[in-house]
């Protein structure tokens, strides 16, 4: 029982990452009708926003220390981060410690602007082109973006820790009557889950309760009619692209402490997030979120030793098996709309 609860928690956590990425992907797809293979790259760039903020905060003055030598026998260097010399050692250290949450503030404008540039500079020209062309050009863009990151940051993962207060884990089991250590869960992963819930809620509220959101939803349903009403739907769609990029970026920023960011982390998530979107149903935002959590939870359960003993290797393929079954049972995924991407 405790194992099942534990894996359920894991599934929620995995699922929140999938859901966030799939949400952004569906926003772009639903509004613009564009299959964006560069979405994983946006997630990755978000994570590197966190890395960059950490790097900026740890920029240091370097002084030589004659009492010690480095590996070549030269005087070794002592570096003191500027923020520590400006704000005092304690405030400075705290700032560095909180670099990931701080990065959120920087990531939002960066990602929105990046989204605008992508949409206006490239995607715009591909609205009328076949989906295969869209896939190819955004895939090319994804490769270019990740190679640029690799050129600056290298291929090795870069440790980007959560603030000290969120390290360690919380013993859930004791609360509900299990032995100590039976169900423990890291604080930062709980933060991630809560964060994902807030973002998903915010996006839905935005689409549901604002005029802007209403127009966008109308545009998703019938672009031409909305255009005929004299509403500049294009500009709103550009803004939606920016928002989708920001969602992906924020998912990346907060993911940085969970797994050290590396340049190809976007590609690792890309295929998975497409499967999530399609299982949820093309063009359906609730579907994407639902499918994200569903696949996350199933993936967590499939990795249990008891399950693996019955089906060897099931944890390697569970996502795909589920995807095939769902698409075969429900022709348009869980909540897909008729006629979207079926031609």
């Amino acid at each position: 029982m405790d194992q099942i609860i534990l894996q359920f928690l894991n599934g929620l956590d995995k699922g929140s990452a999938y859901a966030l990425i799939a949400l952004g992907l569906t926003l772009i797809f639903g509004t613009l009708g564009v299959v964006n293979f560069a979405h994983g790259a946006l997630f990755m760039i978000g994570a590197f926003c966190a890395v960059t903020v950490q790097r900026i905060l740890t920029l240091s003055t370097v002084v030589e220390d004659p009492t010690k030598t480095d590996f070549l026998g030269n005087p070794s260097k002592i570096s003191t981060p500027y923020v520590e010399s400006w704000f005092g050692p304690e405030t400075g250290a705290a700032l560095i410690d909180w670099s990931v949450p701080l990065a959120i503030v920087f990531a939002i404008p960066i990602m929105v602007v990046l989204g605008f540039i992508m949409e206006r500079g490239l995607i715009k020209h591909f609205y009328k082109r076949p989906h295969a062309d869209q896939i190819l050009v955004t895939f090319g863009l994804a490769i270019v973006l990740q190679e640029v990151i690799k050129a600056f940051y290298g291929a090795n993962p870069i440790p980007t820790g959560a603030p000290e207060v969120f390290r360690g884990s919380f013993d859930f089991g004791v609360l509900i009557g299990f032995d100590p250590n039976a169900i423990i869960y890291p604080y930062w992963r709980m933060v991630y889950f809560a964060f994902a819930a807030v973002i998903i809620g915010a996006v839905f509220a935005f689409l549901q309760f604002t005029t802007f959101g209403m127009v966008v939803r109308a545009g998703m349903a019938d672009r031409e009619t909305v255009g005929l009403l004299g509403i500049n739907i294009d500009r709103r769609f550009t803004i939606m692209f920016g928002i989708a990029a920001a969602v992906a970026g924020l998912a990346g920023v907060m993911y940085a402490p969970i797994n050290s960011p590396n340049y190809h982390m976007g590609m690792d998530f890309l295929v998975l997030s497409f499967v999530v979107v399609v299982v949820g149903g093309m063009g359906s935002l609730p579907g994407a979120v639902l499918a994200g959590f569903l696949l996350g939870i199933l993936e967590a359960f499939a990795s249990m030793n008891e399950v693996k003993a019955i089906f060897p290797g099931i944890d390697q393929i569970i996502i795909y098996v589920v995807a095939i079954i769902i698409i075969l049972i429900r022709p348009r995924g869980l909540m897909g709309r008729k006629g979207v991407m079926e031609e």
Partner: protein
Amino acid sequence: MLGLTKKDFTMFIVVIVMVALAPFLLNPFPQGSSLAQMFNAGYPDLMQRFVIFGILVIGFNILFGLTGYLSFGHAAFLGVGSYSAVWMFKLLGMNVIPGILLSMVVAGIFALAIGYVSLRRSGIYFSILTLAFAQMSYNLAYSVLGNPASNFNLTNGETGLQLLLTDPRILGQSTTPDGSLPVTNFFGIAMRDSYDLRMGDWLFTFNAGYYLCGVIMLISFYISIRIFRSPFGMMLRAVKSNQQRMNYTGLNTKPYTLAAFVISGIYAGLAGGLLSSMDPLAGAERMHWTASGEIVIMAILGGVGTLIGPILGAGFNEYFKNILSKINDSVLHQWLGFLPDGIEDFLVTIIHPFVGKGWHLTLGLLFMIVIIFLPGGLVQGGQKLGRKISGRSRRDAAKAAEQSKSAAE
């Protein structure tokens, strides 16, 4: 001629000549010049890859170009074909023919099963189904099916399925008299045998394996032309333009699309079998989704739905992949050595991020440039160029394009 129209026949002849003369065409620079080290592509391995990936993409184009069904899991058939062929070399003997035949049969069966299920859906749902099947094959081949410690080691996991000195090879020999592995051959002609022709400073390599692959590629190409021009091909095109209309007329389109799927699966299996015949080691990475993506890229790069496009796309992709990754700084210095030092160093610094470890970056940029500026792929680029040379005015071209468009509809 051969049941082809005059235009198709001319194109076929051009392809035959190109395949036959490839060792000359791909080695334009004299051996030893710095340009040769960078740009010459006339060595057996790369030439074999050109034609083998040509076969793969020709087959993919029969499905995608004609029916519009975008399979994102075609690499699975390539992988299955490769494994089948290597198993033939392990169990039966080193003649490549049984291996190639088995790879086609097995890939065909796989395609039939996967196609039967996947073709129940269309559009992106179809793409994701094929992707899911391919990723399942890849993941299983890498782990559970490839554990050397288990009795069921079908793929040998990460290392890839390879020949061993202890393999039975009932129709051949397990080990050559001098204690090495026997080599793949076509009725005694070893696939890796080459004849070097020296002409002054130039060196041209004629490789037996390349010519075998070349001949098979020409046959595949010929069959593909015939399919494109046949009533069956017309039917597939009709599926692409409007499947619903077809269904309303009371015609069941599924057997046609399934046939196209299986044919293109067999092409992929054939390509896999040939890859293994040229180099008897089959790695699971051939089935990874990026490999499937690469097939799509090659098809679109060349020009979807055109006959010659797949060959151009495959050639373009393989060429740049192989050449760019091998350029390092010392090659650059040597190549730009004629320039004054300051400029040379500056240029090397500029080019450095795009070659060697940065070859992905250049390839990504090239994809984007081609797809942005040449929506019809390289074939369209060639046509544009041809029009410019022949001096036809733009208006004429537009008119012709319009006409061909309306004719197609």
